[in-house]
């Protein structure tokens, strides 16, 4: 089996699973309980928080555990917009965000917020000037992803952060679900106020994630209840999930440097080999893109058919993002980049992990060649 769909989700590290099982069975107390079992659970939770904070170079009090990227994005965007609604009702985002950002924005639109959806250039990148021009006196939140989940384009977070240093009252949310461990980013230096993480994208478990909320930034919580996570996220804490996430993040960061180099080499190999394919169009930009995502179209081939053809060889790749691929709509990101619909419909995404190898990439290339030839014969 060759798994090349790591932007959809990753295989949890065995060590991460072990931690989860041990904590769940040995330290199952509720951190809010007063007895010593509660105390142990609380200790584990705060140690997990410290470790995640240290790995992100922020303070432990700025880390809030959530159920993953979607929840973090929702708390960040809705929580910030709602709490600041008396100051303004204008939000800015890009037209290539993840569904959980887009849908949250649309929901806010329905209750009276105004949203500016910034266009992107042919590489899928937002322009800092556009951000600047979109800012109004009543702008309260700007949400821009660090790495696009479909084509891998890196957004100019640093430049936007620098721009926003002049607008201290605007909250800057960055969705780093695809970028963490693969594209280094400093939250403080980039003036990020809110940042979403999802553990299952870096070999943690589904249902675990975190939101960074910079000290001083205030949000309205979305859940009402027992006021866990310093009132930001009610619900009994998922201690085992938090511990396993801390472990997954540490292992990811430990391997990050070598992993990035490895994925970059594989991507270069894929790019070189694929460019000789008939009717190929590569969507992932050469410069300013993440090392692990590679998106391209094979002209005249229906993506879905192609994916099933590869699957017969034990190869798993993806059409667009996993969250929207079932809807059978064309990739929003590619359309926003100006790619014609017919080409966008035949787009594939290969997404790598640190553990993938060049040998695997060569096998995938060979399988793709074979499948493309066969399918073209049938379809023509």
């Amino acid at each position, binding site marked *: 089996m060759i798994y090349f769909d790591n932007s959809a989700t990753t295989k949890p590290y065995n060590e991460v699973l072990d931690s989860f099982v*041990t904590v769940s069975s040995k330290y199952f107390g509720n951190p809010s309980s*007063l007895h*010593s079992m*509660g*105390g142990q659970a609380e200790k*584990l939770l705060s*140690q997990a928080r410290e*470790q995640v904070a240290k790995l992100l170079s922020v303070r432990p*009090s700025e880390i809030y555990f959530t159920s993953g990227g979607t929840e973090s994005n929702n708390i960040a965007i809705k929580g910030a917009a709602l709490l600041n609604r008396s100051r303004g009702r204008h939000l800015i985002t890009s037209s290539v965000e993840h569904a959980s950002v887009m849908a949250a924005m649309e929901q806010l639109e329905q209750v009276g917020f105004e949203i500016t959806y910034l266009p992107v250039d042919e590489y899928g990148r937002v322009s800092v000037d556009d951000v600047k021009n979109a800012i109004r006196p009543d702008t309260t939140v700007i949400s821009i992803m660090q790495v696009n989940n479909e084509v891998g384009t890196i957004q100019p977070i640093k430049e936007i952060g620098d721009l926003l240093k002049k607008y201290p009252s605007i909250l800057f949310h960055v969705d780093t679900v695809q970028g963490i461990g693969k594209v280094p980013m400093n939250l403080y230096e980039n003036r990020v106020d809110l940042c979403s993480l999802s553990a299952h994208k870096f070999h943690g478990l589904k249902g675990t994630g975190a939101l960074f909320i910079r000290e001083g930034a205030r949000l309205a919580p979305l859940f009402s209840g027992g006021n866990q996570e310093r009132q930001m996220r009610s619900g009994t804490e998922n201690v085992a999930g938090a*511990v396993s996430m801390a472990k997954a993040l540490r292992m990811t960061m430990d391997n990050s440097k070598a992993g990035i180099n490895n994925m970059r080499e594989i991507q270069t190999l894929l790019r070189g080999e694929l460019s000789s394919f008939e009717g190929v169009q590569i969507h992932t930009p050469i410069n300013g893109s993440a090392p692990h995502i590679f998106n391209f179209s094979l002209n005249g081939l229906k993506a879905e058919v192609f994916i099933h053809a590869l699957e017969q060889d034990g190869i798993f790749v993806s059409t667009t993002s996993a969250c929207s691929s079932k809807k059978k709509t064309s990739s929003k990101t590619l359309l926003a980049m100006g790619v014609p619909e017919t080409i966008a419909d035949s787009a594939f995404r290969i997404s790598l992990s640190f553990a993938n190898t060049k040998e695997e990439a060569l096998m995938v290339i060979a399988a793709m060649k074979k499948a493309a030839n066969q399918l073209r014969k049938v379809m023509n």
Partner: protein
Amino acid sequence: MKYDRILIRYGEISTKGRNRNKFVEKLRKSVRIALAPFPNVKVEASRDRMYVLLNGENGKDVIGKLKNVFGIQSFSPAIKVDRDVEVLKQTSLELVTSLYNEGETFKITPKRSDKAFELNTDGINHAIGGHLLQNIPGLKVDVKNPDINLRIEVRKEAIYLSCEIIQGAGGLPVGSSGKAMLMLSGGIDSPVAGYMAMKRGLEIEAVHFFSPPFTSERSKEKVVDLSRKLAGIYGSIKLHIVPFTNIQQAIREQIPENYSMTTTRRMMLRITDEIRKKQDGLAIVTGESLGQVASQTLESMYAINEVTNTPILRPLITMDKTDIIKIAQEIDTLEISNRPFEDCCTIFVPSSPKTKPKREKVNRYESYFDFEPMIQEAVEKVETLVIKQVDEQHSEFESLF
């Protein structure tokens, strides 16, 4: 350009006359403890300077640690070069080139503590300045507000180059002012008081009153965690845990309710003073802030303080709560202090404690019962923990992370 050492300038130590060697030795110990995670680092101390030789350790991380060491006025990453004008020229050029961005300005601040060097300060200015201007196109001089300030210190043994001065934590090296007992409750104030006392050079041993089952293991853990934060300053800290249940019950039975708080504090102070004697301390540090609560009015302090004439140091006495909270945040104790567990001060709180207790009255109430044997018993049964910077319990969980 890689710095190979960090030059440390002493704070007030420099004014301490004949005690200077002692102070320098204490500072050197503090620096060693702070830099324990970097095994290759070497610390060299002289009368008026200290050098941390990096030996390949990460300079940025070392600087992060040094920022918290008391007794350091400022420090600079530096390069040591031989006393040779050509070498000096060459290294200066490399250093400034590595920092220079298009259009920036510079100046040279020479200092010649060894007058035997062939060039005087003007000469250094000329030789090095000229060399830099010739070799870096676009570089300009600005003596008032330069982007790069190249400091050249000529000393007997060598010349030191540096471009940056980083402010240190100030204060005096821990232990240089002697030893005191810190009454550590678990609240926000007492750890801050301990921190400030340490900043003035005190070595601290913490005293905590523990009343099981009225206060839980978790409230004790909270105090252990607070102590660990303070241990971070000096590697380790002693924590004396006093069994206090019996005394608190006796007070409840013997003393009128509105005076029970006053007597409780007097007992705590007497016990702390006994421990102080045993441990050869010379003072007691508390987190009291004038008028903050009933026990911290001037009348209360007057009534409570009667039981000892040991100096009681109250670093927070004139500070507002908001300022105390700010420091608690900086030293990372606020979150721990805010954990919601009962401590010895919050149980048995009378509904209306006296804010203006009288000495005569409290003495009269206490005269009907002999507390002395109970105090002796409590002191004998004190449990003393040595709290290290690194949590051992944490390491039990190590494999999970």
